């Protein structure tokens, strides 16, 4: 089974702090993704990566950056955390894109609270 591991289940950070959310997958998947889940808004794509050192913006990239130095690891960075970034963050991976033949495998999420 594919395992996607997010380093923290819960995080509490202060406004203005730099925050790192880490994600590791163990199935040699090419593609990795960061989503946030908010009530009434569903899952929204922040950033994704199809290869090492490659990144593409999703639907809501503002206030975030990412890093993919190794194939198995994809980090989400909040350069200066703000209260509107309080959310559940979900990392996912897939072998080929995210369509019909290649469903996403998600981690268990990191609930981030910014105070």
């Amino acid at each position, binding site marked *: 089974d594919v395992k*996607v591991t997010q380093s923290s*289940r819960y995080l509490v950070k202060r406004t203005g702090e730099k925050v790192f959310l880490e994600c590791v997958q163990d199935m040699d998947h090419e*593609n990795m993704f960061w*989503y946030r889940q908010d009530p*009434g*808004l*569903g*899952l*929204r*794509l922040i950033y*994704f990566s*199809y290869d090492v050192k490659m990144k593409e913006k*999703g*639907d809501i990239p503002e206030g975030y950056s990412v890093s993919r130095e190794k194939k198995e690891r994809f980090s989400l960075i909040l350069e200066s955390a703000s209260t509107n970034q309080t959310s559940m963050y*979900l990392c*996912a991976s897939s072998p*080929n*894109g*995210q*369509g*019909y*033949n*290649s*469903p*996403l*495998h*998600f*981690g*268990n*999420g990191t609930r981030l609270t910014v105070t």
Partner: protein
Amino acid sequence: DQQVKQNSPSLSVQEGRISILNCDYTNSMFDYFLWYKKYPAEGPTFLISISSIKDKNEDGRFTVFLNKSAKHLSLHIVPSQPGDSAVYFCAATPGSRFGNEKLTFGTGTRLTIIP
């Protein structure tokens, strides 16, 4: 602009009866549709999918129906079991021969199965 809509935030169904979860979309370019299931404190897991060349796909107790002209899909669960209590997200993608088109998720429907 919410391109994938799940208009029912919640649904309660008696155990053993049929659960029907609905999803509407506005983007006529969407060609592949997926359903994900999410338990509390876990990441979403892929449940079932359908291509636009089909109008029905079945997997055990789960059947997805697609009505392209109405831009509507539905997930039927029969018979419903207590373990089906979860949040269900529908998702859509234009797809491509490279399989790397972004998924757009709906807002989710919380299904509760009453024993």
